[in-house]
C-alpha cells in the first residue's frame, strides 16, 4: 500500500516537473523555434554542399537527418538546464526532499517531445529537398526515429546537467555527448539507410534491437546516477 502511494507520488512529481517545462516552452517557444531553424539550416547546408542525386540521397539522408537533429538538440539542451541555474532554481530543487530522477525523467520527456515536434515538421521538408523515394518499409521509421531520438535526448539531458556545472559549459556538452552517443548514431543511421534503400541487408532488424537495448541501458544508468550529478559539489 505504501509503495503504491510512493510510486503515485513519484509519477505526480514527474508530471508536475513536466507540466512546468511544457508551460515555459509554450509561453516562450524558445527551444522549438531555435532547434527548428537550426536543423533546417543544417539540412539546407548539406543539400548544397553535396548536391546529391536520388540514389546518393537515399544513402546519406539518414545520416543528415540524425546529424541535423544532433546539432540542433545540443544547442537547446544546455538551455534546458541553464534556465534552472538562473535565480538559483536548481539549488531550490536540490533542497527539496524529492527524488532527482523524477526531475531528470521529466526533463527528458519534455525535450523528447520538443525534438520530436521538430523532426515531425522537418520530415516533409527533408523529403522534398532530398527528393526521397523510400524503397523499404517506411513505417519502421516510426520505430527507429523515436528510439534514436530517445537515446540522444536521454544522454543529452544527463550530460547537459553534468557539463552545466563546469566552467566552459557550452563547450563541454558536445565533447562528452558525441563519443557516448556514437553507437546509437551508428545504429540509427544504418537502420534508416536500410529502410530508405530497401536493400534487406538487415532482415532481422538487428540495428533497431541494438538501439532499443542502448536506450534501456543508458536510461537506467542515467536514472540511477542522476542524484549524484545533481548533488555534486
Amino acid at each position, binding site marked *: 500500500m505504501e509503495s503504491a502511494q510512493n510510486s503515485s507520488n513519484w509519477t505526480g512529481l514527474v508530471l508536475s516537473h513536466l507540466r512546468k517545462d511544457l508551460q515555459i516552452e509554450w509561453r516562450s517557444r524558445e527551444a522549438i523555434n531555435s532547434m527548428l531553424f537550426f536543423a533546417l539550416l543544417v539540412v539546407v547546408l548539406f543539400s548544397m554542399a553535396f548536391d546529391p542525386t536520388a540514389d546518393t540521397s537515399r544513402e546519406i539522408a539518414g545520416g543528415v537527418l540524425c546529424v541535423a537533429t544532433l546539432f540542433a538538440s545540443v544547442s537547446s539542451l544546455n538551455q534546458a538546464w541553464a534556465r534552472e541555474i538562473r535565480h538559483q532554481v536548481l539549488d531550490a530543487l536540490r533542497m527539496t526532499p524529492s527524488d532527482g530522477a523524477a526531475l531528470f525523467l521529466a526533463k527528458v520527456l519534455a525535450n523528447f517531445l520538443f525534438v520530436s515536434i521538430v523532426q515531425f515538421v522537418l520530415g516533409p521538408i527533408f523529403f522534398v529537398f532530398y527528393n526521397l523515394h523510400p524503397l523499404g518499409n517506411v513505417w519502421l521509421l516510426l520505430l527507429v526515429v523515436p528510439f534514436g531520438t530517445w537515446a540522444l535526448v536521454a544522454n543529452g539531458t544527463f550530460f547537459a546537467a553534468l557539463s552545466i*556545472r563546469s566552467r566552459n559549459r557550452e563547450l563541454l556538452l558536445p565533447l562528452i555527448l558525441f563519443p557516448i552517443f556514437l553507437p546509437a548514431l551508428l545504429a540509427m543511421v544504418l537502420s534508416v539507410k536500410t529502410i530508405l534503400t530497401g536493400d534487406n541487408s538487415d532482415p532481422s532488424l538487428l540495428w533497431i534491437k541494438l538501439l532499443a537495448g542502448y536506450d534501456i541501458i543508458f536510461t537506467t544508468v542515467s536514472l540511477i546516477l542522476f542524484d549524484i550529478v545533481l548533488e*555534486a559539489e
Partner: protein
Amino acid sequence: MKKLFFALTTLAVLALMGWGYYQAIYVAPTEATMGDVQRIFYYHVPNAMLSYLFFVINFVASLLFLLWRREDPGRAQAADAWALAGAEVGVVFCTVVLITGPLWGRPVWGIWWTWDARLTTTLVLWLIYVSYLLTRRFAAGAQMQTLAAVLSVFGFFDIPFNYLANRLWRTQHPAPVFGGGPDSGIKDPHMLAAFGWNVLAWAMWGLLVLGVRVYVERRQQGIDGAAAQAALAGD
C-alpha cells in the same frame, strides 16, 4: 632511499622492455604469410589487453570514489588519484593500439582503416576516455571529481562491446588470438614467449607510470588541500 628504489625499478623495467624488444624482433620466427610486419602483433595485442586493465582501474577507483566521497573523504581522494592515473595511462595504451593497428592494416589489408565493429568500438573507447580527461580539465574541485567519476561509469560500458566485437560479429579485424574458440592460441613456443615477455614488459612499464602518476597526484592534492586550509585560516 625512495629515489634509489625508483631508479632501480625504472632500470629493471627498461631492461625488461629491451628484452621484450629483442624477443619480438630477433628471436620469434617470421610469420609464414605476412612476413615481418606480423611482429607489430607483439606490441598491438599486449597494449590492447593492458588498456583494458587501466580502464578497469579507472572504473573501480571511480566507483570507490563515489562510495567514499561522503563517509571517508581521505580515501576518496586517493581513489580519485588512481582513477585519473588509470585513465591517463589507459589512453596512452589505447593510442598505441590505434597507431600500430593501421600500420599493420595498410600492408596486410591494403587499407589503413575500416569501420568494422572492433575498430569502431576501440576508437569510441579512446574518444570517451579523452573526453573524460577533458572533463577533468574543464571543471574544478570536488565537483569535478564527482562528475568525472559518473562519466567513467558511462565510459566503461564500451569495454564489454569492444571485447565481444570480434567474437559476436564477423569483423575485418582478425578473430581473437586468445579465448576465441578451440582453434585460438599461439602454437609456436618462441612466438608465445615473445608475446608473453612483451605483455609483462608493457604491464610493468604501465604500472610504473601509473604509480608515479598516483604519487604526483597525491602530492598535488596535498598541496591544494594545504592551500585551501591556509586560505580558510586567512593567512
